[in-house]
């Protein structure tokens, strides 16, 4: 088995980099030739356009609101995680002892 040569993929980064640069040049050339050049940066064209919502509302979507569906679905998992890892020094010690015990039981063959 050769490293970096998977069955369906040959990793040739220079080739892909060339493709990427080529595409970027094509986009720039097309942009220069065909896109509008009457862009005015001083009026509201410079502001981002958010379809279907106001700017004020959009600013309320903060980092802690992102992926709320994911968090909501995994509420049970996160409550377990919170209970397991309270991040106190006692917690560190407790996990350390538990893992030492498990490792000893497995390596010494008691659990196998």
């Amino acid at each position, binding site marked *: 088995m050769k490293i970096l040569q998977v069955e369906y993929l040959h990793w040739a980064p220079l080739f892909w980099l060339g493709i990427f640069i080529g595409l970027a040049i094509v986009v720039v050339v097309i942009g220069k030739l065909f896109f509008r050049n009457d862009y005015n940066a001083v009026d509201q064209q410079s502001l981002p356009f958010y379809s279907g919502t106001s700017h004020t509302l959009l600013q309320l979507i*903060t980092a*802690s609101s992102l992926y709320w569906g994911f968090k909501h679905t995994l509420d049970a998992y996160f409550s377990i995680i919170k209970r397991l890892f309270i991040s106190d020094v006692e917690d560190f010690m407790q996990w350390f002892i538990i893992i030492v015990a498990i490792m000893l039981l497995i390596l010494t063959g008691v659990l196998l």
Partner: protein
Amino acid sequence: MIKHVPILLVAIPLLVAFMIPMIGMVNRTARTVIGAIALVMILAISYYIAGDVMLHGKIFYYMVGSSNPEIITEHGLTFPIRIGLKIDPFSLFFILMATTLVFIFYLFSIQYIEENERKNYFTVLFICMVAGMMGLLVANDLFTFFVFLEILSISSAALVAFRTERKHPPYAGYKYMFVSAVATSFFLLGIAFLYAQYGSFNIDYLKEAIRGTLLDKIAIVLLIIPLAMKSGVVPMHMWIPDTYSEAPAPISAMVKLGSLICLYGLFRISFSFGLSHAHVSYPLGVLFIVFGVLSMFVGVTQALVQKDVKRLMAFHAVSQVGYMLLGMGVGLSVVKSGDASFALFGKVAMIGGLLHVINNALYKGLLFLTSGVLVRHFKTRNLDAMNGLAHYDIFTTVVFMIAALAISGIPPFNGFVSKIIIYESVFQYNPVLTLIAIFVSILTLASFVKVFYSAFLGMPSKKRPMEQPVLIKCSMLLLAVFIVAIGIFPQGILKIIIEPAVNALVNF
């Protein structure tokens, strides 16, 4: 002169660390420059011997106190001390990584840490930490290893608690010190178990002598679990977010590097003492895989819900350790199985795991440094209170994107290369593990999309950021260049550095 290389790597930073307070009282610029010179010297030494060690397989032995330090037996010792040092391809791989990165982090810290923040103390502790790392990497006996582990831990804890005028850093430093004290105490107990049986601390000797008895197994557990704890392996990881988030950015990056150095110890001891006995190496490898998967999954899911940018990055540090454990665990469990095809993909998995160590050190270092820039600009770690940095600071935006894409395993950055090697080899061990690893990468990308959306996109912030000082930009640029270079030209580093390192570990 070249025969003294192992001790020079430790002695230079140690000596300079003790000189810094005196020089700092006389001239602050001289203090900073001498610190940099010390780091450049160890960087130059490590690269100078790289050709001999990596390409020609030369191993440096050094016995402190011997009339001829290259004689590794006790014959010729002029002092009754036996501090044995050794540099082989595996340790040199970590030495090259550490010397390069500490120099870059030091460059960043020169203009990031203000002079009125007791920079003398900072520089002393920083260089002491480097001495601890170097000592740990060249130690060839367990007691010396323990001593340098303590030096690394104490200086790290002091640096984490560096900003004592604030409420949380001293508490974070205390937590780190507690974890380190517990870890090193058990480590010392493990050393005692081996010394009591075999009468030696020397790792080479113990590797040959160890018989896989019950006491040996207890000793192995007592040696590797503390190192796993110091590396931030789940479920012993909770000190990581507390510690990394409270330390200044270059220190978060340094403590992360320290964790990777502890991972070196974990791999060194597991492979040295476990590999020669299949009834130890197989379960140990499987346990590595289990802890790796746990670390990957728990780390990334906890990261995804964070709104503190540094805690988020700290949880990703935990998650990334999982990939390394996965690769090395597969290697440990199959590389000496006696089946040639098993041994081959086990070795490839180890290559992926080790490459991920250096890749992780690079992009994680860059992410911590960019988080430092974010925190300095927004005066908060809360992502909810950040927005629109990309409107003003294109440089930080671009380097952050490079690091974020690299950690998510997106081509053509370095994270992709190591991850695909791990996916490819682990797939042959168990396809489910590869699926989990890919799923974790997707969650990693989602998490960094969140950071990018919150801190860089959106409406421009009211306050225009100050221009980043040149050394801060240089250090981040250097890391970004390494990330892209390894991503585009991985074969060089794989052939010259990683493969000899893996061979040295397997045939240790």
